[in-house]
């Protein structure tokens, strides 16, 4: 199953790269994310609660990030299982600067198995697409200073914190989290 | 919404959405599958049950609208395992073939004979003129009405 898409994040590329590595942003932006931990070089454990229509469940798995090119691109390989089924995915993500904003493009190849794999391709791809859109909208909100819960006072935007540098591990874990969240995140009701 | 339906003398409590048809409530919530659904638009009569004794199309009623009322279905026509006169007449006269429309006829005729215990043949035809059957051609059903009415 192939899913591709793009999103525009309203910030320059270096802020986007750092946002994608900020665990606070990622943990809130990934729909249904419950846990995100490093488990060795380039590898992370993640637990997320996800659903397609009324087939919901909690999935745990491993994510590996590779081919990192800072502020440009990276690739993710993820595998996870839950009661309703299994997921394996390969994602390629590219960032490019466009007029002071950043265009994030992603290409994913996913294989879904078990019960969740039996709900029909269109449902699956529609839900995955929606979840990716939600994730990026949440990251965008964080970048532009709007609180993720939607109660963003205008004042906060003016006091947006200066970009910070994060250890590579966290950055990579965040990107992995993004990948998993985009593919499986629970649809926000 | 919670409803109480007294079906064949037995109170049943069910929690159903407001839009649940009585036919579906009987068949799927109460598991009384004797009442059948042939068209769901009130024409064929297969879904006929007696509501406080009157024949009604259960496919045209919402379960919530008959809360607290008494319903008789085909499952309630026999007594202590003995077929009612109408049921027995159907068996004697070969008035059913596939049996799908039969429950609707049985309830309709049960009420009809209660209101007119000595029908003429014309009356008998009138009594069943609102129920469709695709198998029997009606000849034996008319005979069964007259047989059930007795001498």
């Amino acid at each position, binding site marked *: 199953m192939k899913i591709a898409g793009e999103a525009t994040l309203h910030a320059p590329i270096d802020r986007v790269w750092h946002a994608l590595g900020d665990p606070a942003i990622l943990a809130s932006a990934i729909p249904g994310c419950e846990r995100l931990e490093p488990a060795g070089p380039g590898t992370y454990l993640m637990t997320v609660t996800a659903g397609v229509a009324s087939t919901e469940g909690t999935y745990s798995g491993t994510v590996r990030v590779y081919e990192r090119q800072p502020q440009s691109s990276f690739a993710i390989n993820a595998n996870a299982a839950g009661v309703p089924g299994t997921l394996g995915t390969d994602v390629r993500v590219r960032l490019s600067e466009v007029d002071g904003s950043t265009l994030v493009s992603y290409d994913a190849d996913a294989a879904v198995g078990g019960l969740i794999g039996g*709900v029909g*391709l*269109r449902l699956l791809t529609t839900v995955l697409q929606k979840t990716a859109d939600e994730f990026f909208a949440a990251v965008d909100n964080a970048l532009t200073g709007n609180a993720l819960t939607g109660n963003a006072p205008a004042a906060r935007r003016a006091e947006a914190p200066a970009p910070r540098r994060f250890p590579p591990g966290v950055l990579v874990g965040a990107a992995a989290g993004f990948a998993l969240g985009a593919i499986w995140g629970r649809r926000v009701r | 919404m919670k409803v109480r339906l007294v079906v064949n003398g037995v109170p049943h409590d069910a929690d159903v959405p407001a839009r*649940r048809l009585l036919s579906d409530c009987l*068949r799927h919530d109460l598991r009384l599958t004797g009442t059948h659904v042939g068209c769901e638009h009130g024409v064929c009569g297969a879904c006929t049950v007696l509501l406080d004794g009157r024949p009604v199309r259960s496919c045209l009623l919402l379960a919530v609208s008959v809360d607290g009322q008494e319903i008789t279905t085909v499952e309630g026509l026999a007594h202590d395992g003995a077929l009612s006169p109408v*049921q027995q007449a159907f068996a004697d006269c070969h008035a*059913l073939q596939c*049996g799908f429309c039969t429950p609707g006829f049985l309830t309709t005729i049960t009420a009809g004979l209660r209101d007119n215990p000595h029908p003429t043949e014309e009356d008998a035809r009138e009594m069943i003129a609102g129920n469709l*059957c695709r198998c029997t051609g009606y*000849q034996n059903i008319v005979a069964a009405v007259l047989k059930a009415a007795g001498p």
Partner: protein
Amino acid sequence: MTQLFGAPIPRREDRRFLTGAAGFLDDLGHDALAVALVRSPHAHARLVDIDVSGALDVAGLIAIYTYDDLAGALAEPLPLLIPHPALTHGRTAYALARDEVNHVGEPVAMVVARDRYLAEDAAERIVVSYEPLPAVVGIEAARRADRLVHDDVPGNVGANDTQAYGDVDAALASAPHRLSLDLAVERSASTPLETRGVLAEWDTESGRLRIWSSTQTATGLRAAVAAKLGLDLTNVEVITPDIGGGFGVKIVHPWPEELLVPMAARALGRPVKFTEDRGEHFVAAAHERAQLHHVEVGFDDEGRIVGLDVRFWHDHGAYTPYGVIIPIVTSTQLLGPYKPGAYRVEYDSLYTNTVIVTPYRGAGRPQGAFVMERTMDAIAHELGIDRAAVREMNFIQPDEMPYDFGLTFQDGRPLRYDSGDYPATLEKLKKLVGWDAFEMVREAARAEGRRVGIGLACYVEGTGVGPYEGGHVLIETSGKVKVATGLTTQGQGHQTVFAQIVADELGVPISDIEVVTGDTRRFPYAVGTFASRSAVMSGSAIALAARNVREKALRVAAEALEADVGDLEIVAGVVRVKGNPGAEIALGTVAVLSNPLRYAFDEASQAATQFVVGDPDKPPVADDDEPGLEGRDYYSPPHATFANGMHAVIVETDPDTAEIRILKYAVVHDCGNLINPRIVEGQIHGGVAQGVGGALYERMAYDEQGQLQNASFMDFLMPYVTEVPHGIDIDHLETPSPLNPLGVKGAGEAGVIPSAAVFASAIEDAEGVRITSMPISPSELFELRRTHEDRR
């Protein structure tokens, strides 16, 4: 034949139907997930996109399937069930539409949800984008072919074929008289009270699939599902529940739903059930009957047909899963009980953007009977001869049987009438309806200002087609007899009729016999219930199987009683020596003895254990024998066996409103030996009612865009009791079939075959206007009167 064969005993299966304890498809599977289909609203369109996002809001939604979810054989078109060399451009649908849709109602997506209400909610929110294309509706539009249903089918012609004998052109050229007729029959449909339904359970651990379907063929469905889902046949079971009528529409298989529901059950690991609703049935099941005919007939001064040339056009809808069976039946059964000097029939089977056309009780015979009987009436009118006399002039005589036309019937075998006495049948009918005295009736009515007419119509019906059916008869150690056959039941009383046969063959009380039909676990080799074949095919097979069991029972009993087989009889389930009371052994005990045991399981079975019985010098089970008391046999006919019948009707037409009333309806019917006359009569009653519907009320009203305007019981007029005759006078003739052990012929379709013809005949007789198309309603009759008046 002895006691129960031929007896009009009441049915044994009725109790569960009378008490609401029957198990129709929707009565099963309470915990199954529910299904709703998204269907095309266009008669012809390209499928552009399916957007399911709107459905995500529906709580309880589980799955949505489209063509993209079909893999392997499921992604290929549905099977073309009956290929034929003349069907050069056969087409079948995909289980879910792939690139285009060809009739309103064609399935596009399937929703699975917690219950039917939610499934329909979700289905409504799925947005399908189409690019509508021009639709082809009706035979004339199909023939004109300025638009095509399928781009690769020139002229919309799926098949063209001709059958003939003699030189019809020469015969017509030299005939003393000639007539032309143009006739038309409109679409109707089986419309059983129970719509279609299928329930599937997948056992994940064993990889086995169990399916219940309201189908007329359990074995056909099983094979199709196994093939399409890539399963071993032995891992698929099909069970038919009680079925609320079929009349032909449920012989089609596999319906898309019959494949998709098992697919979903497997994918989701949960039982899944589809129950069709009535509106769906009108646009997603099947129709039948629509044909146009052109007849050229040549005849002599006495009305004998010397040449009959028929050209007809058959509307088979958007796809051809059932091949060309219906036009073949029309082509051959058109001949009825007659022997035209020369005959040629040619048909085009045409595509239209409407629901598929597959057999409906009669299956092309009503159209054929209509053509021939209108022709007979036209000849009689032309020559001023009595309509019955013209027919008599053309009958095949009893001493000409068997009569071989040199044509090929719908079973691929010779059209060869085996038996029948048409003159005797007609004699009976004339007496029954008062044919000869009718002119007086007409005069008396005229004196009162009333208008009456009498009509008559004859038909021959090929019944009991093969390839075969089988029967299994088993006697348990309790003495109970278990009978199984693979074809199915939709109200024909099989559980009684087949028990009657076994009761007689074995000499057991009918109350000890239990019959199971349509369950592949009990009998896996079968064809199905259609074409009036069950009594002939399964009846014969069950009789043969019972005879095998009887033979073995007598053999085993003879040894136990130390008597000769020839001295034994079986009465009320007990084998006894004739004229020697006390020397007897119950069949149940014979069953015990027929299975040599090491381990007894009750006191009676001790009699079969190794220290009690058996010759120590011989193997316990002989080389050519098997343990147990059961028999299995098959009946496979050389060709169909031909029943016949004749109907007459007296109608009254209202001079002002043109309403049509039935005053008298008479049937003389020959289906060979009758197993249960009451059940046969019930079949005739039902058939006549459908015939009345088809003659006066039922049609499918498609508009030019291919929208079915009367897709409900409010507007598709099926007869209530008020529309059928007040009583039907029935008489029988029995010319036994020489082709099967019971001498029976099929009876299922008899009542409906000549109806359009007989009503046309009677109305024409009453009115003096030519009736060339059916059905006819009062407003159409009113119009016909007017144009008739205008022409004068």
